[in-house]
């Protein structure tokens, strides 16, 4: 039941959301737009890994989600600092 919901409902919706975020990543008129799209992609990745953990029961994917969240935060903060400094 939950597996079917994840495979039929959640993961396709997250895939559509990733495609939309990629649209902004490609079209973004400036660098902050692209960084925002990357931030959203990281969040979507965490959600997809969490839903996959729920469907399969492999808890290793959740560890990957934790690491993706950490790296995404550090990447966004580093990009913001470099943008503000004017590189």
């Amino acid at each position, binding site marked *: 039941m939950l597996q079917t919901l994840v495979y039929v409902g959640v993961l396709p919706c997250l895939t559509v959301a990733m495609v939309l975020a990629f649209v*902004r990543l490609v079209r973004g008129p400036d660098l*902050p737009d692209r960084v*925002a799209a990357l931030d959203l992609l990281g*969040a*979507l990745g965490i*959600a997809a890994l*969490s839903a996959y953990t*729920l469907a399969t029961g492999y*808890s290793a994917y959740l560890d990957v989600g*934790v690491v993706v969240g950490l790296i995404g935060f550090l990447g966004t903060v580093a990009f913001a600092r470099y943008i503000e400094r004017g590189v």
Partner: protein
Amino acid sequence: MDLVRDGLTVVLLCGGTAFLLLAAVGVVRMPDVLLRISAISKASTLGVGCVLLATALASDDVGVRARAVATVVFVFLTTPVASHMLGRAAYRRGAPLWRGMVVDEWRGACDGPTRGTTGGEPPTARGPEGDG
């Protein structure tokens, strides 16, 4: 009891997915970088939190629950910080702001490059003019 748990899991999963989809629509549709950051920071935080709580609720493993809740706490702590830094950097870089912006408390406070506007017509707050 199992029925309640499964029902709550389904509600959290669907709600979180809807929030994430709305965040992605917002990042494409919004006319301005600050509005885009605003849309994705709130909606994606709530969406990720809901999906992770659904995973924590559906699992019987204590380790999975602990990691999911820890990730929720981490995301709730870090996303506002990252979004605020990114928004401030975009503003000081001189990103074009939406034409319908009403309050800009930093106007003139930072000597960035000249700023343009973007987006379509702003919504009229009081309806068409010249009525009486």
